[in-house]
């Protein structure tokens, strides 16, 4: 593998950032210094005025394979991820059939190994994600699965969730929860409030999420097992988890770009591209999430990338499936939310280092041949690096996405900041904003 | 102009600016009287007439004609009003006008209908009126009385009784009421 030399970008370390050259040889960061004499055959990457940091890690991507390849495949998802600056994706288990056993987990790991990225798997907590009987978490963990969730829905029965936490703890794996009480959510299609009433749509109240967050915080307290909260969408949810974390409970949380960029007002058009669970919330909730990002208290940004075949999003709002794309736009939206005073360290913390720690991808894993992610940007580390250009201005066109699907809510939106290059496991996968 | 006319004009989004007055109130009164005599002379039997004014410009002239005819002949004269908005064939050219009432309380069969309007121009309003009338019954004959004929016909329609013939150009506008006749322009308001 030939060498890559990244010139004069702002190299964002865990504590300190400095303008420097970064030399990558044989899949590793060979050297980080003010100027480097690179080998003559090294590929030159001009990173002036750009940020250079650890490649992004998405804790939450729906790659739809097996079962719904018309919407996305592991391969097309990986390409979309690479364009978005991602070097590792965690594939969610709500495929058809669900990833609740070693055969299916192996299948996904094997398909993922053919992509340039590291594709890790989140296994299901319960069999078929039905929320009743525990899935073989130990067997799946032996294959390298470190995160388990029934995502799409949360585990509704508290006794099942308690048992799952108790079982998971000694295995050293982490559970993750989609917090929404399905009974309270009442089959709703958007946030419950004045707008849902006016539009004649059944609402999903914020309490449906907050009640389960509260419940699971207490279950963590009871079992002392670690838990990761997926896509928290309300101000109160974030407050509660921050409070629990401050108390020393082993909880982490992620926020999704759509929840800190769009609010429920988007649903007034009845365009199903804006339908998602948990739903787009009130402007106050959006402001609270953005504020938490800026204060640096958010553990991770995760895309909840949810592709759907175009004809499905052509249905009426009630009948269309929930979920929107995210991989290709998360970085720009995170950059925008952090604002002009945004610290590049926070940027890489929420997109890379935080998620890498939660997914236990900081060390390389020989069983699944995954490299290490969330690097400190020093020599010797695995070369998963993303170059981000904060001065780029561009706009989204749903027809030119790398994903097989088109359900992005940002079509036509003006964006600031773009991934210029993605180096996954030492290979240049994206250069000048395009796949190589 | 009456409130109704103003409402109609406003609805069309056009305001009339007068350039000069061509007929005074007295001129119009005399013309209407003369037309009434012509109607009697031609039709003899006033009882079998039906004086139908077209909304909205023909309403007042029709009323005036009907009462003068009753005065001259000493007999009651049947009258009514007809709204033709739903019968127009040129809706794309003329913006929708708010419809007004149609009020015809007698049978038109075997009667001679005298349609009355303020200004005769392209003839399309009269054509719409003929369509409308056919839904009301089968008159023996239909005649047409107008205060002003300004030319520029687009259909083979000719008036039987005219208050005043006024050659005009296409882009001029005419307002004709019982108070007088003005020429001017119509501009988007």
């Amino acid at each position, binding site marked *: 593998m030939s060498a890559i030399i990244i010139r004069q970008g702002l190299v964002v370390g865990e504590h300190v950032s400095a303008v420097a050259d970064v030399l990558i040889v044989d899949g590793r960061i060979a050297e980080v210094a003010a100027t480097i004499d690179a080998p003559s055959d090294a590929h030159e990457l001009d990173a002036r005025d750009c940020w250079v940091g650890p490649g992004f890690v998405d804790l939450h991507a729906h790659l739809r394979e097996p079962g719904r390849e018309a919407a996305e495949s592991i391969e097309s998802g990986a390409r979309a991820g690479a364009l978005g600056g991602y070097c590792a994706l965690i594939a969610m288990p709500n495929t058809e059939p669900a990833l609740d056993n070693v055969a299916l987990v192996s299948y996904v790991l094997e398909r993922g190994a053919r992509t340039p990225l590291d594709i890790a798997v989140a296994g299901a907590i319960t069999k078929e994600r039905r929320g009743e009987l525990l899935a073989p978490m130990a067997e799946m963990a032996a294959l390298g699965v470190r995160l388990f969730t029934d995502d799409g829905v949360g585990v509704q029965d508290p006794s099942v969730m308690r048992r799952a936490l108790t079982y998971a703890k000694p295995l050293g794996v982490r559970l993750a929860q989609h917090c929404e009480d399905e009974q309270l959510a009442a089959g709703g299609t958007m946030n419950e409030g004045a707008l849902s009433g*006016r539009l004649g*749509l059944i609402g999903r109240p914020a309490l449906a999420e907050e009640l389960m967050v509260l419940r699971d915080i207490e279950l963590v307290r009871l079992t002392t097992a670690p838990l990761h909260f997926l896509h928290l969408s309300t101000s109160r949810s974030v407050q509660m988890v921050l409070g629990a974390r401050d108390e020393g409970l082993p909880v982490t949380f992620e926020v999704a770009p759509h929840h800190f960029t769009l609010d429920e007002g988007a649903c007034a058009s009845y365009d199903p591209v804006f339908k998602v669970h948990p739903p787009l919330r009130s402007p106050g909730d959006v402001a609270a999430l953005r504020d938490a990002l800026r204060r640096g208290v958010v553990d991770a940004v995760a895309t909840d990338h949810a592709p759907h075949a175009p004809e499905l999003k*052509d249905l009426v709002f009630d009948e269309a499936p929930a979920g929107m794309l995210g991989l290709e736009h998360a970085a720009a939206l995170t950059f925008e939310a952090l604002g002009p005073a945004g610290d590049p360290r926070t940027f890489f913390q929420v997109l890379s280092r935080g998620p890498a720690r939660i997914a236990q991808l900081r060390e390389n894993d020989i069983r699944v041949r995954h490299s290490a992610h969330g690097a400190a940007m020093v020599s010797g580390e695995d070369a998963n690096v993303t170059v981000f250009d904060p001065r780029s201005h561009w706009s989204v066109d749903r027809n030119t996405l790398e994903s097989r699907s088109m359900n992005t809510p940002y079509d036509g939106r003006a964006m600031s900041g773009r991934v210029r290059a993605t180096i996954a496991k030492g290979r240049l996968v994206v250069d000048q904003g395009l796949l190589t | 102009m009456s409130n109704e006319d103003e409402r109609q004009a406003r609805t069309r989004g056009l305001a009339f600016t007068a350039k000069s007055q061509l007929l005074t109130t007295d001129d119009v009164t005399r013309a209407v009287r003369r037309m009434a005599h012509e109607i009697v002379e031609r039709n003899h039997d006033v009882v079998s007439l039906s004086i139908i004014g077209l909304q909205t410009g023909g309403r007042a002239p029709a009323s005036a004609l009907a009462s003068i005819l009753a005065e001259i002949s000493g007999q009651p004269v049947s009258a009514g009003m007809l709204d033709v908005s*739903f019968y127009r064939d040129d809706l794309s050219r003329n913006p929708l006008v708010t419809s007004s009432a149609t009020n015809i309380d007698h049978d038109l069969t075997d009667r001679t209908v005298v349609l009355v309007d303020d200004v005769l121009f392209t003839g399309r309003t009269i054509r719409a009126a003929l369509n409308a009338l056919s839904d009301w019954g089968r008159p023996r004959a239909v005649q047409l009385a107008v205060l002003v004929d300004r030319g520029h016909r687009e259909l083979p329609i000719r008036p039987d009784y005219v208050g005043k013939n006024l050659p005009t150009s296409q882009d001029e506008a005419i307002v004709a009421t019982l108070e007088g006749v003005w020429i001017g322009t119509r501009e988007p308001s």
Partner: protein
Amino acid sequence: MDRYEGAVVIESIRGRNLLSLDELSKEAIVEVLDTAESFVEVNRRSIKKVPALKGRVVASLFFEESTRTRLSFETAAKRLSADVLSLAVASSSVKKGESLRDTIATIDALGIDAVVMRHRSSGAALQVSRYVPHVRVINGGDGQHQHPTQGLLDAFTIRQLLSERHDTTGLESGAALFKGLRILIVGDIRHSRVARSDVAAYATLGAEVRLCAPGTLLPEDVATWPVTVASDFDDALAWADVVGLLRLQSERGSGAFVASLSEFTFTHGLTVERARRMKPDALIMHPGPMNRGVEIDSRVVDSSRAVVERQVSNGVPIRMAVLYLSVAGSGEGQTR
């Protein structure tokens, strides 16, 4: 239902879609009522037809079955001399899950000027209007969202009856008769598109609106509606000039929202005793079909029959007015 930020207020439906009454200004609503007056007159003639929409094609697309409303719209279109393409989609081969876009594209390929739509999902009419922007879309009822022509014909009926009582005409009165008029709406407001359209029309026209219903049948967001919630049904009945009853669907009275139909009648049914508390000349209205013995006692029905029959008969002139203003106002020949 207050005008939210960025709301487009429509001053006239001429040449425009009619999707929701909460987008219309007072002038727009009065224009429809005034135009409907002329069509009431047309409907009294022996030849109940005018050529206003001759040569235009109106498709009626009812994804949710409703013989009465569909016939009312189709009659209105025919009396305007339009050609009518009737698709009772609920009983056709279109299954749930077939794309709305495909269904409307198929019909549009036949060349239509307007579509009247009823669908069980809120927002369906707006979605269709985006697929075929050159076609005028008239919402005949979408999920729990709006039923604009029902709201309009209810307002028209009130204006008609009150102007007769005050010896004036609807045209002359404009919206004056609604100012301060006391209107009470009773029943399953939460799930009712008729309620949303009625409240929009009445409040915009200047009436004072109160709602009365069991707690579970009031909308979650009722605090943002331009209404007052009446806690005492009997007091509200004595206060009202107009009482609008809503149909309680049997599945709502099966225990999830209300214990039973008889429990609903006990708390909010218009029984004979309750009807006696009403003002002697108060109007009782119902969008139909009535559940006798549930929201209204049979004996009370007969005393309110005349008003309900007016509502039904006013449906055609109101729908003629809507089609005329919306379609004829679009200009000829644009879709052919």
